[in-house]
């Protein structure tokens, strides 16, 4: 089955009001080209679930977000995400603020078809007081109360990987696949952008196949977009774009705001965007970060 499609075709399958999971972590391996395609669309009222970075900041700034499920939004080297902060401080988005691990449990519950997973995370904190939808339950096996972390059922997930084939076998050869396998499993439809599209025989070597973290049946669509994670990183191919993130962050304080950034870079297509940021070769030369 050939699952290749364009970014515009992915976005055409998304609907207003959907709950969308976004893979990656902070400034790392975010499906930014797919996010940009949403920015170019009239899609709105989205609920996002994300280990957030500029994906969340941009979609908030563009008014696409009704509700955000998050544990943090950060660019790491710029700890506070300026556009997300602006959205929160203006009260323009609803939030479900949870712990990083709770998000993993919510995705797992969705992936496994469970209504919730019990956990002690959140007890004694404002996670349970600020989220009336998160219930406490008694255990049938002890006398303690537990948090029933609800399933984070996703209508769609967007993920960026380094290699994929047309059938949706996806490889993450950077050091961490984060929770992307759970994002893929928690969603009705998972759309994956890849830096390199490979022939299926690429995976015949166990070394390559070992870096595949979910089965192709969990992948609904594959979009070949070299450099598609920019300005986030896609290890081992390229790091995150520090000057670009700085300019993007500074835009939150400009009069033109995110609109000024979008006017300068977004363009009508990913080709326009890549031209505006200096081209694919420049993206691929961004060094990997040192932690």
């Amino acid at each position, binding site marked *: 089955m050939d699952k290749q499609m364009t970014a515009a075709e992915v976005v055409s399958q998304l609907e207003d009001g959907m709950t969308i999971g976004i893979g990656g972590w902070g400034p790392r391996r975010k499906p930014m080209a797919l996010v940009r395609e949403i920015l170019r669309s009239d899609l709105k009222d989205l609920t996002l679930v994300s280990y957030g970075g500029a994906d969340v900041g941009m979609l908030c700034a563009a008014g696409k977000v009704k509700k955000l499920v998050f544990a*943090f939004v950060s660019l790491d080297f710029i700890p506070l995400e300026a556009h997300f902060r602006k959205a929160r401080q203006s*009260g323009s988005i609803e939030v479900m603020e949870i712990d*990083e691990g709770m998000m993993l449990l919510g995705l797992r519950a969705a992936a496994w078809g469970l209504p919730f997973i019990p956990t002690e995370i959140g007890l004694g*904190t*404002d996670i349970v007081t*600020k989220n009336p939808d998160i219930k406490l339950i008694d255990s049938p096996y002890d006398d303690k109360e537990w948090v029933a972390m609800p399933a984070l059922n996703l209508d769609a997930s967007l993920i960026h990987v380094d290699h994929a084939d047309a059938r949706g076998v996806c490889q993450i050869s950077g050091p*961490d696949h*984060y*929770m992307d396998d759970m994002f893929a499993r928690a969603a009705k439809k998972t759309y994956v952008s890849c830096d390199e599209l490979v022939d299926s025989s690429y995976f015949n070597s166990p070394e390559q196949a070992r870096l595949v973290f979910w089965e192709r049946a969990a992948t609904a669509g594959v979009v070949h977009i070299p450099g598609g994670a920019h300005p986030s990183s896609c290890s081992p191919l390229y790091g995150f774009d520090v000057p670009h993130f700085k300019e993007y962050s500074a835009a939150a304080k400009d009069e033109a705001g995110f609109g000024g950034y979008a006017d300068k870079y977004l363009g009508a297509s990913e080709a326009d965007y890549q031209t505006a940021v200096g081209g694919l070769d420049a993206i691929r030369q961004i060094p990997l970060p040192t932690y």
Partner: protein
Amino acid sequence: MSNEYTLAELCICASAEAFRDDGEVLATGIGVIPRLAASLAMQSFNPDLMMTDSEAWILSAPNPIGPRGDDFVPATESWMGFSRIFDNVWSGRRHAMLGPTQVDRWGQSNTSALGGTYDAPKTMMLGARGFPGNSISHQNSFFVPGHSARVFIEGECDFVSSIGYNPERLPKGRSLDDVDIRLIITDLCVMDFGGANHQVRLRSLHPGIALEQVLENTGFPIEVPDSVPTTAAPTAEQLAIIAALDPHNQRAMQIKDNPAGDRS
């Protein structure tokens, strides 16, 4: 004893003490001083500690901070991506040292929202991050580079990211003794929760710091023992280990004006 050391180096050594008796746990220090503290502990008195490269691998020896040159080979020991970090966190075999924006008298901390309302906070920060899970799963310590009543607030945190010793928030079926907050290391002193009913208690004052300075800059009462020792100065051996772990001297940029460690 060395007479020449910075406040940052004093704080690194004082913070390293938090990990001394931990045994074989994952030591996570977020930020330059906590990371160097955990690394120093692993390189000296607690070699059983585990540590990551802050990305996705467990190391047998801590990486120096900053650019390490093309020929540097990290002592990789096992894979430790974020999903596996949670497996470790929930096992309880971890000690995290972090720097929240607010800490209250119960040891609850805030990393998320300040002022305004929850729906529209005056200042939005990171979010709860992993604090809720860390605080209920394993021991934690705090590093506060600027000891003030704005950090150690009089009332309760604007947003409670981590569970503390607050009886009013105690979950059903649990005891306050289940909470395990170890040390608070600041630019003025070292404190713990060893006072009556888990009250914050002064453990040591940094060289040249008066008790009044700590009391004036803490928004809640703390227990002060009859005799308060002075925080131990770094040894020459500790300073050498720190220098090797931080070859670009990032520690000099962590506390305003990089003051000397002895302020008497």
